[in-house]
């Protein structure tokens, strides 16, 4: 938990933007660390899949997933958050740069159970900015080691156009490693990068059939627009991957982040408290009843 006042998850602590990296025209990654000479900062390092409530001095709060965890020279957590500007709050965060102060509450939520994937092939399927919360999964799996014959890592990424693909350089680095397969697909071949696009044109689910992994001995991690996740789970199931072996990150309507406001209620679950990461079979139960 970030340390602001003792024991409070309601009052933001203060973090400082240490670095700002532009990923796409509307997406940046902010590296947030402790404020120099000031007590506080992240006490517990966030786990992959968790989120923090971020705010600026002039805007409200939004839940933003952790996209990488590191540490400073003192060993205190330094966290990357990847933010897409889609409204007033995220636009405010998008404009932040080195030296700017942010309000930070968290980390909150249930993260990816990377430990359950030990010794199994790992399939990561990301749609759009959904790659951001999955990046720590890739970091963890690569840290544990992959091998073309014993434990493979498959990363499937979808984006609207080539210019909307986040972490393009890292995707290339991952693809160069033995035991790792990276495939990308864009919905439409327009805009910057279209002429040189080497990948597929179509939906990310179309990449599942040709991915090289052992469907009976794998763990899948999926994040992106809900309709994309729904059909990805179905495609994985067609390959023979049980829904219980597929984890998804559902980020609906989280507002307080601490299970009090009820905005993110989904049946008996509160996504901020019982998610955002859930297994696909659990999510299928929760979404069995829906509005028409």
């Amino acid at each position: 938990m970030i340390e602001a006042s003792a024991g409070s998850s309601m009052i933001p602590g203060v973090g400082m933007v240490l670095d700002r990296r532009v990923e796409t025209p509307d997406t940046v990654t902010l590296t947030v660390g402790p404020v120099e000479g000031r007590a506080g900062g992240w006490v517990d390092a966030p786990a992959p899949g968790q989120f923090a409530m971020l705010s600026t001095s002039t805007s409200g709060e939004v839940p933003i997933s952790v996209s990488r965890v590191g540490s400073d020279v003192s060993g205190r957590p330094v966290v990357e958050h990847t933010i897409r500007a889609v409204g007033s709050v995220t636009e405010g965060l998008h404009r932040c740069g080195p030296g700017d102060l942010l309000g930070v509450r968290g980390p909150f939520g249930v993260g990816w159970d990377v430990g359950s994937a030990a010794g199994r092939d790992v399939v990561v399927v990301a749609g759009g900015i959904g790659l951001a919360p999955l990046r720590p999964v890739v970091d963890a799996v690569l840290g544990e080691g992959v091998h073309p014959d014993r434990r493979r890592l498959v990363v499937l990424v979808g984006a609207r156009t080539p210019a909307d693909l986040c972490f393009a350089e890292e995707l290339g680095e991952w693809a160069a490693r033995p035991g790792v397969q990276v495939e990308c697909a864009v919905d439409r071949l327009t805009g910057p990068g279209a002429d040189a696009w080497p990948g597929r044109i179509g939906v990310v689910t179309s990449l599942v059939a040709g991915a090289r992994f052992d469907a009976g001995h794998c763990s899948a991690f999926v994040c992106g627009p809900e309709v994309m996740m729904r059909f990805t789970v179905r495609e994985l199931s067609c390959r023979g991957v049980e829904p219980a072996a597929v984890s998804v990150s559902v980020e609906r309507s989280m507002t307080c982040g601490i299970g009090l406001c009820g905005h993110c209620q989904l049946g008996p679950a509160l996504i901020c408290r019982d998610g955002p990461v859930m297994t696909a079979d659990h999510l299928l139960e929760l979404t069995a009843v829906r509005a028409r």
Partner: protein
Amino acid sequence: MSGGVEALVAEHPFAAGLSADDVTAICRNAALIEVPAGTLLFTEGERSDKCYLVFTGIVGLELYLHERGTATVATVGPGEILGWSWLMPPHRWRFDAVARTDVAAVALDAATVLAACEGDPRLDRVINRRIALTLASRLEAARHQLLDVYSDGGEVR
């Protein structure tokens, strides 16, 4: 060459579950093609007389638009089928197909496959169902692409 082509086709997902006799029947007059990136495989409006089983590489399906030039609307990759216009009238290609990378594929002769289906109702059902599944999958994908799910029409924060 023929034996080599049959062995290749037997390994392709299109042939999953087909008997050796079925594979032999559809592979008569088939040919292995290996083309470099940039090769035009077929042109919109031409008579469609091949069914391509792609093994390596990526083929782009393109449409020519007077105002915009060519637009690539989809790709077909390893393990997939390129071309279904041969199966139904007017038997004319609906798109251009251009190799976006070096491509290796087996070109089944459409007339041979249709004749084999004509003489074997069971094979006819299997082939038609395989093509129908491919069409359904691509129709679904096209509809999802139309949804534009990655736009900022989602939850605004």
